[in-house]
């Protein structure tokens, strides 16, 4: 059946800058905020915006993500017509290729989009934490009669050179796009969220595919090409919380933002719920000797120690005399009695032995340059009494990874 707008969610990237956390799973499957995974945000935004047909483009280590999405029921995306579809690369009569770039991933699925014959296609990233009404962006796209609408937000001028910057005229028509400019002319950063008029995008994807010099990427190729060809492209200004959680620091920051009332990331807001798959576990028990403050606690935890300024995900436990501070603890991790965890991201099902010390405060290292968040990949076991220094990254085989 014909749909007005279909969403294509780019979820195939490795997320190599999350290092040990994405050793076995794609970035959108990484747990976030206690009971969610990163992909819950764009999927919930689709549902809340009235988009009921979503293609999820997967490529890197998709098993965890596939089983998490399942039939899409948690996001009400199990539909008779439409719903959520996992789209891995597939073989065709002329051969098979991996997705070469973001644009190529959509190109390879032109057939999928055509099945719904939509007027518009939203291209979304699977690694952003934000709440956004795509229907409002679509309204802007239609009112401007644009070929492409790009969601932008104002960033501090000092940081503008880290983003793809949109230079606009007085009516927010995009006149120039600069990727990480040294001398930014505007502070409107692209959020990597696009709405295209499908027939336009379809044509540019086919042209782009025919160009052997192209990297088949939206930011590098499709957007500049459309601008160059004089297509009508407009900016949609977004105000609200948005964070690309593609790096360990930003993932940690975004989790901590949940604990700050002023950050704009309010998951308790009932008007725009974030949906996710609910784990089966009893309520959390906070023990008689526990000391919990400024922390978000998911279901199924058993807390007998101290938890301060931290995010505890589902079914984690903190033993007596243990302390967790300024840390993100992912589902199923166990912190045994007397262990100290600070400024760390603890992956799923890690076990921190009795009295072990993981991570440390910035002031604990003499040289601030040597300090950083400590990260343990899923399933890492730290022996009783072992020490893991700040900025260390370990996977479950205790292989140390170093930030590039």
């Amino acid at each position, binding site marked *: 059946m014909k749909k007005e707008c279909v969403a294509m969610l780019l979820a195939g990237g490795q997320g190599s800058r999350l290092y040990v956390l994405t050793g076995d799973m794609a970035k959108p499957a990484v747990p976030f905020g206690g009971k969610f995974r990163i992909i819950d945000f764009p999927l919930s935004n689709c549902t809340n915006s009235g988009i009921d047909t979503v293609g999820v483009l997967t490529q890197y280590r998709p098993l965890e993500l596939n089983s998490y999405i399942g039939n899409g029921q948690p996001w009400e995306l199990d539909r008779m017509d439409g719903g959520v579809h996992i789209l891995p690369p597939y073989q065709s009569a002329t051969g098979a290729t991996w997705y070469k770039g973001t644009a190529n991933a959509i190109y390879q699925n032109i057939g999928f989009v055509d099945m719904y014959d939509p007027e518009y296609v939203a291209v979304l990233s699977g690694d952003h934490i934000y709440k956004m009404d795509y229907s409002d962006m679509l309204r802007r796209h239609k009112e401007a009669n644009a070929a492409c609408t790009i969601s932008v937000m104002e960033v501090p001028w000092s940081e503008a050179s880290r983003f793809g910057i949109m230079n606009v005229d007085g009516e927010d028509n995009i006149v120039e796009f600069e990727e990480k400019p040294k001398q930014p002319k505007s502070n409107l950063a692209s959020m990597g969220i696009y709405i295209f008029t499908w027939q336009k995008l379809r044509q540019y994807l086919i042209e782009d595919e025919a160009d052997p010099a192209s990297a088949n990427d939206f930011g590098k190729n499709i957007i500049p090409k459309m601008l160059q060809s004089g297509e009508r492209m407009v900016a949609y200004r977004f105000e609200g919380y948005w964070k690309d959680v593609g790096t360990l620091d930003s993932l940690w920051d975004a989790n901590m933002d949940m604990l700050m009332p002023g950050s704009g990331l309010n*998951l308790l807001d009932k008007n725009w719920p974030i949906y996710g798959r609910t784990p089966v576990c009893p*309520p959390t028990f906070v023990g008689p000797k526990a000391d*919990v403050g400024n922390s978000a606690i998911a279901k199924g935890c058993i807390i007998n120690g101290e938890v301060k300024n931290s995010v505890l995900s589902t079914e984690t436990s903190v033993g007596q005399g243990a302390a967790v501070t300024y840390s993100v603890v992912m589902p199923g991790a166990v912190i045994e009695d007397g262990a100290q965890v600070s400024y760390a991201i603890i992956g799923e099902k890690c076990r921190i032995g009795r009295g072990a010390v993981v991570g440390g405060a910035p002031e604990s290292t003499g040289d601030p340059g040597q300090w950083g968040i400590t990260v343990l990949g899923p399933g890492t076991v730290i022996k009783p009494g072992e020490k893991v220094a700040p900025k260390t990254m370990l996977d479950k085989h205790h292989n140390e990874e170093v930030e590039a």
Partner: protein
Amino acid sequence: MKGMHGIIFSYEKPTGLRELIEHRVHGSVPFAGDYRVVDFMLSNMVNAGITDVGVIMHGKCQSMLDHLGTGKSWDLSRKNGGLTLLPAFAYAERRESAGQFRGKMEALDCVKDYLEHIRQDYVVLSDSDLVINIPLQDVLRDHLATGADLTAVCTAQLGDSSDTYFKLDGDGRIIDTVRDIHTPEGYRCLNIFILSKTLLLHLVEDCMAHNQYSLRGGVLQRLGDQLNIRAWVWGGYAARIDTIQTYYARSMELLRPELRRQLFCPERPIFGKENDAPSSYVDPAGECINTLMADGCDIQGTVKNSILFRGVQVEPGASVEGCILFKGTVVKKGAILRNVITDKYVTIRENGTLMGHETYPLVIARGAEV
């Protein structure tokens, strides 16, 4: 077809749950921070491999209907079988009972067509007001091994005198069934029974022919000599929720880790209805100790020795001790609550004080602003 079929009885009982059953039946009373009482028996059935469950509906069933939905939360939304809601008394207008629940055998007679179409060889019958995590497959195994006609689950833990008690012979056969005895003795009936589909159909017919409506009177007592009725003794946690006092006491017990380990053992998970609440948040100024807490709570005051359901808010300076606060309860600034049970969406105004006692907790009805 081998295997078991589940039938759960959800009906109104004239007992002391007061405000908590103003709008619901016993089985849909919230329990343990994130569940309804019926979740336990449904999960027991699902964990024992049961795929078809019929729930006999009676009385104030709206909240039960809302809760069960399609049965998806228990994996019982199936193309074949799955969850079936049985409004047994909707078609019973010609009966003299006039919609009153007079006993399980009459209720089963009302849904006889359904019983005839049961695909499985065995049927487990259970009440919906029992909090228990029991391996029903073991009960069936022993039912088959002993060659019993009917197996009744019971416990050596004595309860009220209003409960039903069994007297057993040395071999595990039930030789007497009594209730309303002054001093409880023997084995307390937990109202879980296993028997074959064939015998069940026969017993329903036989009881109706003899004006026998209850399973206790019509089968256990009347046919105790003719049938091989055996006891299966359960040694673990079992709580029947029938008065405010037992509700409060059995809830508060769950603050003990060893009881929670029994009731929420990982090999037999308890499934509840899924929800979209985010994590709970404890403020820097908030204090939360010895408390069972569901998702979506916002703790800015002090909470001790309590059970908090989803989305409870405790504002700064408020103090909650020994309380059970249902979903969406808001405790405003400076309010003090001791031994209080609040139903859903209750608001306690600023600086209000409410005191119950652990032997007689104060119950605030749904939606009240106090």
